[in-house]
């Protein structure tokens, strides 16, 4: 199979994630879409690593995984606090700052 198909797949995954962030209303789902985007970037890194014939891209994807894990910790902490004080995880309800 042509290796460039993986790049297309990664672009499609990234787009799904990016649209999901804009369209979905639940903070957890929005956050999952961001994770999908990070994983799409990972797939691109690994594929380019194969195309370029060096390992830099694979190393990069390890770093991304670690950073994504940290982001989950911080993100879920914020979302859970938000949920506990409002009984809702919808990003539409978070509109006190809008005027």
């Amino acid at each position: 199979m042509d290796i460039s198909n993986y790049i297309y797949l990664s672009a499609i995954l990234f787009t799904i994630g990016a649209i999901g962030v804009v369209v979905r209303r639940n903070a957890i789902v929005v956050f999952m879409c961001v994770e999908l985007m990070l994983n799409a970037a990972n797939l691109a890194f690994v594929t380019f690593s194969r195309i370029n014939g060096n390992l830099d891209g694979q190393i990069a994807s390890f770093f991304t995984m670690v950073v994504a894990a940290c982001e989950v910790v911080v993100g879920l902490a914020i979302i859970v606090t938000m949920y506990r004080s409002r009984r809702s995880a919808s990003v539409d309800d978070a509109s006190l700052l809008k005027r």
Partner: protein
Amino acid sequence: MFTSPNLNYALLAPILIVLAGALLGVGVEAFARKELRAPLQLGIALLSVAAAFLQLMRVRDQRSITAAIDSFSFDGATVFMQAAILVLSFFAILLISDGGNFTAQASAIPGSEDEHSSIAEGKSQTEVFPLTLFAISGMMLFPAATDLITLFVALEVLSLPLYLMAGLSRRRRLLSQEAALKYFLLGAYSSAFFLFGGAFLYGYSGSLSLNSIAIAISSNTGNDIFLLLGIVFLMVGLLFKIGAVPFHAWTPDVYQGAPTPITGFMAACTKIAAIGAMLRIFYVALAGDQVQWRPIVTVISIVTMLVGAIAAMSQRDVKRTLAFSSIAHAGFLLTGIVALNQSGLKASLFYLVAYGFATIGAFAVVTLVRDSAGEVTDINRWVGLGKKSPLIAGSFCLFLLSFGGIPLTSGFIAKFSIFTAAYESGNTSVVVFGVLTSAIALFFYLRVIVMLFFTEPKSDAVTVSVPSVKVSFVVAASVIVTILLGVYPSLLLNSAQTFATFLR
């Protein structure tokens, strides 16, 4: 075969000292007794920032691009920006430590029994200090990093603590939590764009390092589509961090919702780090492809200035106003990137310092204007403040004048030199719009000054609380720097000139 990496610890030490301070702070939070925690944390934070600054001054004349293999460049611009970040964060830590801005227990539900009891028992957590130190270490690394992975990691190390810190306010906690949520979701979204852009630049050049990307661009070997995609996506991530239009929507909300000392820290230091990294990426890695990105950045710069200046006029909240003013300044700073010459770099460095001091001073003043329920940020209730406390209102006006770029303040020299640099490089359009926007913004700043000084105060009880030693120090130092850099700009311009180099 593995060869062990050769690290130059003397040059990395400023960052490592701040990180060590942060880890120590985590330990203190876990093990120290309740009443010892606050003073210990403050001491550790101030000492580690000061020690990092001293170490930085000790090695300031060394230059190396191999301090950490080829991921970290210790050049003039790095030294200058790290020093600026350290000094400004020292001020920010003083503001943070000045009582009563932070929640006793971030995990307690606002308004719950749990929260009341934790306040009644005098529980207090001081996790904000280690978080600040972690953020500072990321900010120091971000403008110095020379490969895409280090850039990404530094970006996250500086952002993740800030997301949490935005949610720690003691009063108006729902607003604060909402600010944290918005900042986090949009921040994570933009860093995904940054990473995806990085992946395409890697695909284009076959390497993660900025220098190799520059070489690949000049030899014109790779796939141009990858390059363009890479630049655009990378730019989205960076423009978000500096709050440029059209990625500015989070700025007013987060600035308003976050505790005021954190807003000051975020506004001053994050801007230095993000503009620093942007300067390095565009000057070092992408300079060869300027025909593609320069028009985009020019347009974004102009739109950002205009939106910031015009939207600031319709705001009723002081913190939102300052947020839009910071958006306008992001536009002015982008002209330094459009300039793409040595004087552009010099002017950007000077601008960042001038803007940073005025910002931290302005937010320090905001922490002082209070009523019985806490800070008052409604601008209509600031009316006539100049009659009640001329000194504080006067220094706030000085910072506004500096934002507006009035002569004899640091803001004038900063704007003048950054526009000169852009003009020298032939970008007249951005200069014309810059000067026009400055005029619009000035109208607005003068309106606030008129409100403060030439309008009769209303009856409702807004008081300026007596500033503590720490806050007075921050305000006084910011006033002095703002005037000094306006009257004797050569004090800093000369060193900005010497340090305005990127090693390749």
